[in-house]
């Protein structure tokens, strides 16, 4: 039925390709049911037009009452509408800017700080104890800039399961203010089923940090729709907080 309606619409709008239009017209000559549907569709369009005319008449009556019947209001035409509009616009922009600044600074940073905890690194991973301990120290001391430099060196040759390192790098980028790069690493980490919930949680926090509430909520929804994880309670709490606009 939907295909038939779409085809009829396209035919009557003149948007069918030439060959399709000809085929449709040929079919119309012999297919009585199709011809009935086309006639019915035309009647429906006519009915919609008449119905909207009626709705439009209602609007025009309201305008008539306001504009014609209430003649004293004509005096208001003497007001300089352009000037008034300009003043209202400037005031609105100032007020909007004030609230935007308020909104940007307080809730997002506060909420992010309330929910962010660095990903906890398990002890003694990989094949090089010394390198691991150095990396771990930098990470746990929250010297994230140095951490990123350290793990980027060629001499950093440690066989951690690679995706866990991506998660740590993501957290470090996030905490050094580079949410965009952080999300690249979280996306890599998310490919590992074990790390997926953590990666999704941190990705949501990265959007929160950017002030992108919509994307943060979308990631939280996705996290909660997957198999249960350690982040579910926090995710639900954060989602509720964002939806209530706190």
């Amino acid at each position, binding site marked *: 039925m939907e295909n038939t309606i779409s085809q009829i619409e396209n035919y009557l709008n003149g948007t069918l390709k030439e060959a399709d239009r000809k085929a449709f017209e040929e079919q119309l000559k012999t297919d009585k049911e199709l011809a009935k549907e086309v006639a019915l569709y035309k009647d429906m369009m*006519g*009915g*919609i037009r008449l119905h909207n005319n009626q*709705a439009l008449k209602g609007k025009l009556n309201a305008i008539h009452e306001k504009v014609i019947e209430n003649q004293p209001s004509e005096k208001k035409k003497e007001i300089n509408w352009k000037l008034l509009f300009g003043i209202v616009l400037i005031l609105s922009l100032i007020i909007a800017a004030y609230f935007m600044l308020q909104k940007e600074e307080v809730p997002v940073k506060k909420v992010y700080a309330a929910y962010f905890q660095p990903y906890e690194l398990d002890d003694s991973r990989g094949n090089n104890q010394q390198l691991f301990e150095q990396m771990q120290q930098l990470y746990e001391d929250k010297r994230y800039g140095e951490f990123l430099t350290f793990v980027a060196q060629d001499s950093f040759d440690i066989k951690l399961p690679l995706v866990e390192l991506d998660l740590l790098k993501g957290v470090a980028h996030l905490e050094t203010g580079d949410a965009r790069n952080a999300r690249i690493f979280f996306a890599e980490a998310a490919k590992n089923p074990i790390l997926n919930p953590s990666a999704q949680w941190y990705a949501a926090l990265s959007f929160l940090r950017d002030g992108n509430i919509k994307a943060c909520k979308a990631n939280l929804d996705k996290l909660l729709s997957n198999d249960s994880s350690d982040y579910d309670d926090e995710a639900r709490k954060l989602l509720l907080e964002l939806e209530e606009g706190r």
Partner: protein
Amino acid sequence: MNKHRDKELLEWIREGDLQQRDKALAVLYQENYPLIQHLVLQNKGSKDEAKDVFQDGIIVVYNQVLNGSFEERSSLGTYLYAICRRLWLRKLTRTRGTDDIIDNADYVETSENALDYLVGTEREQCIQEVFQQLGTECDKLLRYFYYEKFSMKKIVEQMQITNVQVAKNKKMKCLKRLRKLVLESTHYLNLLKP
């Protein structure tokens, strides 16, 4: 009404959202009604008749602008006057048996076909009655798409629907529902009988 103003009004009607269209209607009304009232009162009519004729005239012009058949060979005001004049002339001929009109305003020739926007076949009128059973959301969605010619994107904004695909799906559902209601209408089915 000057050209710049006309351009603005046409843009509001063709491209604007509901609020802008309503604003255009209000401007057209305020700026043109007095002349039409004068025409009708000067030619055996009453204020109520003037209001009816004028509102029908606006409906015709609004439909033509939305459908792309308003040719901009004259100003909106001039054309609206011409349509209203034709409407009043038709009424005078039918109800008072006269086709003499006294007026001094400029007007352009219009076609009798332009007034077809106001009338419908009996079957179309029957479908108009069925709308009451459709529900507000479907009512608006179908009118906004098929009559107001809003894009799906604009409909999403006007009706706060989730996204374009959801709006498209709703539109199809509403159309199918309207179809079902029409085919259940005894009045409509009787009209189909040869």
